[in-house]
């Protein structure tokens, strides 16, 4: 696995989970713009929060004031906070789906949906923050994640068209669980426990 595939896979996951939130809200809350704007703003505010969250490295997760990437890499990347964030984002999604199907068309739950979407979005922000040092340039990280996002967006849409609401239940979990081994492997590459294949110019564990 290379870091590009890792970023691509996470972009795909974020695209799928975002479309799943949109469709879930559209079907079981309202197709009015309230759903769209809630999902959009909650996701973005989550990403912003995730950008400033503790970075999950082996320093107890304190905020750093480093301005260059190198020292960040010197600290080990711990797998469990990444997995924990990932599972939290996934659980938040399924929490929202359970609420939506248990209490359809209930606007009083809008703040709850906001918080749950924000938790999922926070993982995306955290993803960018934590992975930036492992890419030679920020552009490469954003490029790969965005390419994955486009594929995920198309897949999420296509899955919904082909399978209907079943896709909202199956796809995020299937994809989310597949990513857990990738996170574990990524953390091992990042801390230099395993040599990364292919990308010899990698900043992984340099």
């Amino acid at each position, binding site marked *: 696995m290379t870091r590009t595939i890792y970023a691509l896979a996470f972009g795909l996951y974020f695209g799928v989970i975002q479309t799943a939130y949109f469709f879930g809200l*559209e*079907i079981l*809350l*309202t*197709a*009015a*713009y309230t759903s*769209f*704007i809630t999902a*959009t*703003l909650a996701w*973005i*505010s989550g*990403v*912003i929060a995730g*950008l*400033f969250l503790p970075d999950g490295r082996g320093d107890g997760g304190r905020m*750093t*004031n*480093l*301005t*260059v*990437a190198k020292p*960040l890499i010197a600290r080990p990347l711990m797998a469990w906070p990444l997995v924990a964030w990932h599972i939290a984002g996934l659980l938040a999604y399924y929490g929202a789906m359970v609420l939506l199907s248990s209490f*359809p*068309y*209930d*606007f009083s739950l809008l703040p709850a949906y906001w918080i749950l979407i924000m938790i999922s979005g926070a993982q995306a*922000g955290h993803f*960018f*923050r934590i992975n*930036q*040092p492992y890419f030679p*340039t*920020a*552009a*490469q*990280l*954003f*490029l790969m994640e*965005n*390419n994955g*996002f*486009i594929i995920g*967006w*198309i897949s999420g*849409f296509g899955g*919904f*068209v*082909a*399978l*209907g*609401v*079943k896709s909202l239940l199956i796809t995020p979990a299937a994809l989310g669980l597949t990513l857990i081994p990738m996170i574990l492997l990524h953390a091992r590459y990042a801390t230099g426990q395993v040599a990364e294949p292919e990308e010899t110019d990698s900043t992984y564990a340099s």
Partner: protein
Amino acid sequence: MSAMKPVNHHTAILFLAGICLMLLQFFMIREISAILRGTEVVILLVTISYFTGYSVGYALSGSFSLAGLRLLALVFWMLHITLPFSLRYFSAMLHERSPGWSFAFIIFFAMFLLSSFYSLLLPWFIDREGGGTSLARLYGAELAGAMAGAVGAMTLGAYPMAQPLLYQVSLAGVLLLLWPKKRMGVAVALGLAVYCLAFQSLERGSLVAHYVKGIHFQQAEPLLSVNSPYQKVDFLRSGLTGKTYIFLDGNMNFGSTSLEHFNTFLSRLPAGLIRPENALVIGAGSLQSLRNVAPHTGHVDVVEIDGAVVEGSRRFLADINRLDTISNWSLTIQDAKYYLGSTDKRYDLIVVDVPAPLSIQLGLLHSVEFYTLAKSRLTPKGVLSVSLSGSFGKTATTPKTVAAAALAVFEEAFLVAPDIPGRSFALAGRSLPFGREDIERASVELGHKNTIIYDKAEAELMVGDTEPISLDHLSYPVKRSFSLFIKRHITGETP
């Protein structure tokens, strides 16, 4: 400006770029979709192109020096200050020669010339600042700008000039922060002034060009054009007939004579037959259905998701809806699913007057689950009247698909095909308070002697194994919009 610290400069640029990106996502994607006559497939392709533009920007990010970036910003500003007018003029001109070329140009534009400049900025500044914590600050600034842009897009859509102007001001800010020269400031200020002064005439002229050359709507006279949170809403008057038309995302929603006649059938016929105490009209459109139902009804509730359509109909279709003569009605701006799911009211008549299922959102309003929800809000003798979006017959797939959903949900139904080209509708309920003869008599009273009526058994034979739209089967709207897309943009047929 020059006293500003570079880091604050960068943050401010990214904030403004975030506003621009979100505004583009809202109003330019809508403009482009309307130019291509938005259906699910068109909106999908345009949105994918827009997000591909992000990747183009990221990929090119490392190729620019500061001087190159400034030049690019200037070129983008010079191009974007002509939006959305230039796009309408140019695509209309291309459409006249070949619809395929017009489509290809627009997708190219969306992919390379819409979002790519803004997405280029974020990694450019992060890498310029050496990475580290700058990503959180700069990306956070861009996202904060995106949030501001989203709120702006949602709140300003009803004012025709507001969204484009906010976009132009934000883009001008990006250019000036990147290239803080006095002469640039003067040029940008002049550009904005010209944009404001010329807006009305360019807006009008480019809309006329789009409708006359792109949609072949002769002597179009724009009355209202707004970007609602859902779609581009255009009200036009024809210089030929003097009639007013509604276009939603470039697709005609109201205006043809046959549609007016059909609306009368869809709403007045059942209302006249059952004289409901409470009636619900889903989808306001021209508000003609309200006019048809209200005289026969105690009270009419109208539910419409898009307030801009209602506002336009109040202003420009007063001769059609005659709202000044109707007092027994109330309006709710909301999604019909939400309304039906949250109301305790029961209705003797529900009229579903919504466009054909060319998008998933509209498909959901023609689904088994939606009709089940509507049925739960009908009184025991209540009636659902729904357009089948075409002429019911063995070969017409859309009417068969819509009918299949209604037949799956309701115990009794009649499918009615009046002698109006391309129109038919279903009357369905648990126990209908009228029979075939009553419908025939009512049709004759409405001036149509050759109405074909199918009872449920006959209709089921015609529908056969056609699969209805349901939450587990949503592909129909996409398939239908894909075939429409091929006809409009590839083969050039007029569907």
